[in-house]
């Protein structure tokens, strides 16, 4: 790391760290949904990335609509887009659970294949509807520009917005899981499905809403993603592996673990990216994770679950 003064190094770390925080936000939003689904049902949703893309495309669609018909509404549309992305992705997830996944709970490996099939179909649908080129929605003015605490540090506003959004969603998920009666049902089902059924919890319904919620959060991740990068039909696949690693590394069914692991993975990746090439940063991060997981397969924070 020769050639940089301490001041510069500090600025680099701050800026790369913040770039890492944008990545962290998207990864965390994706992983939250995946972790809830995986933790509760043991289902690996390979189409999770595509549900994120659904959110992103919904945002794009709404922005085009607003731009054409209600230009005056442009500054505010994004907030609606987030909500809409949540509901569109959530509804699709609800449908996918009903049509596909509920038949396969006993065969987790087969769910993996079926959801991969689903992801192929969704990808092609995106390509047929929105075209193969990457699209990005017109962002409202208040998301552009950056904040400069010192001369050398330059923090983009959209990153801060995404971080705030992530914080809000994470808080919401925590509240839902640990304070609401629905969350109680979910946690009970996770811990012991049979007993939960015996005491009168409709576990099938819980499953379906959990899946829908997970997909909905992926939709929010997609809306947030549009502020950082442009969306293409295969955008989802790019993030799915990283997201899996976040979930597995954090320890399935542990939300705290998911946050910690999303943070460490995103930070490691983006700080390394500055010093070595992007691809090698990815190799190092993933390799380290694989090696750690070989020694500690249950992940960072393993919660005790009876299956």
């Amino acid at each position, binding site marked *: 790391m020769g050639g940089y003064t301490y001041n510069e190094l500090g600025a680099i770390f701050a800026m790369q760290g913040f770039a890492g925080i944008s990545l962290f936000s998207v990864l965390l939003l994706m992983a939250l949904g995946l972790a809830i689904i995986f933790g509760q049902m*043991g289902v*690996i949703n390979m189409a999770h990335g595509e549900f994120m893309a659904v959110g992103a495309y919904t945002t794009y669609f709404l922005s085009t609509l607003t731009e054409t018909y209600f230009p005056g509404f442009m500054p505010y549309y994004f907030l609606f887009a987030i909500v809409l992305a949540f509901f569109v992705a959530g509804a699709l997830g609800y449908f996918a659970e009903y049509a*596909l996944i509920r*038949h*396969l709970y006993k*065969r*987790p*490996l*087969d*769910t*993996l*294949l*079926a959801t*991969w*099939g*689903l*992801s*192929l*179909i*969704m*990808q*092609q649908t995106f*390509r*047929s509807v929105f075209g193969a080129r990457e699209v990005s929605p017109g962002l409202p003015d208040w998301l552009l520009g950056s904040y400069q605490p010192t001369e050398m540090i330059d923090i983009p506003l959209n990153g801060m917005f995404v971080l705030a959004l992530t914080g809000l969603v994470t808080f919401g998920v925590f509240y839902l899981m640990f304070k609401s009666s629905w969350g109680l049902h979910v946690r009970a089902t996770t811990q012991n499905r049979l007993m939960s059924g015996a005491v009168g919890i409709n576990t099938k319904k819980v499953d379906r809403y959990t899946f829908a919620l997970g997909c909905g959060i992926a939709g929010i991740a997609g809306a947030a993603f549009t502020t950082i990068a442009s969306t293409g039909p295969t955008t989802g*696949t790019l993030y799915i*592996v990283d997201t*899996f*690693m976040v979930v*597995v590394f954090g320890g399935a069914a542990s939300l705290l673990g998911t946050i910690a692991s999303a943070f460490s993975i995103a930070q490691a990746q983006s700080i390394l990216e500055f010093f070595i*090439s992007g*691809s*090698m940063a*990815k*190799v190092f991060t*993933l*390799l380290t*994770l*694989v090696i750690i*997981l*070989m*020694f500690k*397969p249950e992940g960072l924070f393993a919660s005790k679950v009876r299956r």
Partner: protein
Amino acid sequence: MSFAYDKLMGGKNGLTGFIILAILILIVFPLLLDSFRLNLVGKYLTYAFAAVSLVLLWGYGGTLSLGQGIFFGLGGYAMAMFLKLEASSPENTAIQSTPGIPDFMDWNQLTELPWFWEPFSSFTFTLVAILVIPALFAYIIGSAMFKRRVGGVYFAIITQVIAVILTVLIVGQQGFTGGINGITDLRTLNGWDITSDSAKNIFYYVNCFLLLGVIIASRYILTSKFGRLLLAMRDKEDRVRFSGYDVANFKIFIFCFAATISAIGGAMFTLQVGFMSPSFVGIVPSIEMVIFAAVGGRMSLIGAVYGTLLINFGKTAFSESFPELWLFLMGGLFIAVVMFFPNGLAGLWQDYGHYITDRFKSVKNLFVKPASATKATTVENS
């Protein structure tokens, strides 16, 4: 003789299926197809190695590897490295700034051959490497995971991540690996031109015989006590463990064996197609190999070959004329196979095949026993 009949062929049904497959790929395809199409079929059949390996690992062993592309790629790259070194002799590469090293290294400002390329100038070493390196790699992954009782979806994800790591590494380290284009422009094998039609035909037959050999070897494993243990582990792992077997070692073995098989396929791929690239290593090819096995029937070695052929024929036919439709079809196939016929084509044949064979038999009976047939009609008339 009866040993060979029962253990290697799997009894009467197994023998019939095996012979039909052998006739199809050794006689029917070469007679019907021109040299270009035959080469294409040969390429598909190299994927069948990976599909067969997945039947062992996933169908019988119950461990799904989403990283068979890793081993396919390792085998393919080992072969490609040997061929590339031969193709870049100092005479052939005299125009480069450093003659005698592969062209892509020269483009990437490398001035000498990296150390791990050195041994691949020996053909014997390459052949050994194709068989040993993937197995060794699988041993490391397998022993790290199975000894700690990691299995199921975790194993699937970790193998997938390793496939991603390998792809990113190959693409990123352009100077050492040829990057995204892979290792191309391979010409000769020990001085023998591999791009000619006659060479391709010979490789096709070599490939077929290897594939049939692999099927026999796999069948031997499955009919042995080991095969029965494998099934037992898939269905009730704990019970096998409590009976005193070391479950992890059996899993490691089958994983290594599957890796070696896939690597043979990869090496044959390089020989027949003439290049190797990271697009045969990553997530997508690995998961496609799983669907080959799934469509053919995850419990049927021969079914896996048919599944591979069928999907690849379909892919070629569809993506030539309706590229958009193909992904829909492929996605639908994934879902349909998993939801409606989890045992694939082989399962369908088992469930409904007797309708066809029965008809054959009744036709045969008509000729063989005319007496009984006439008797039946007379009874009906009376």
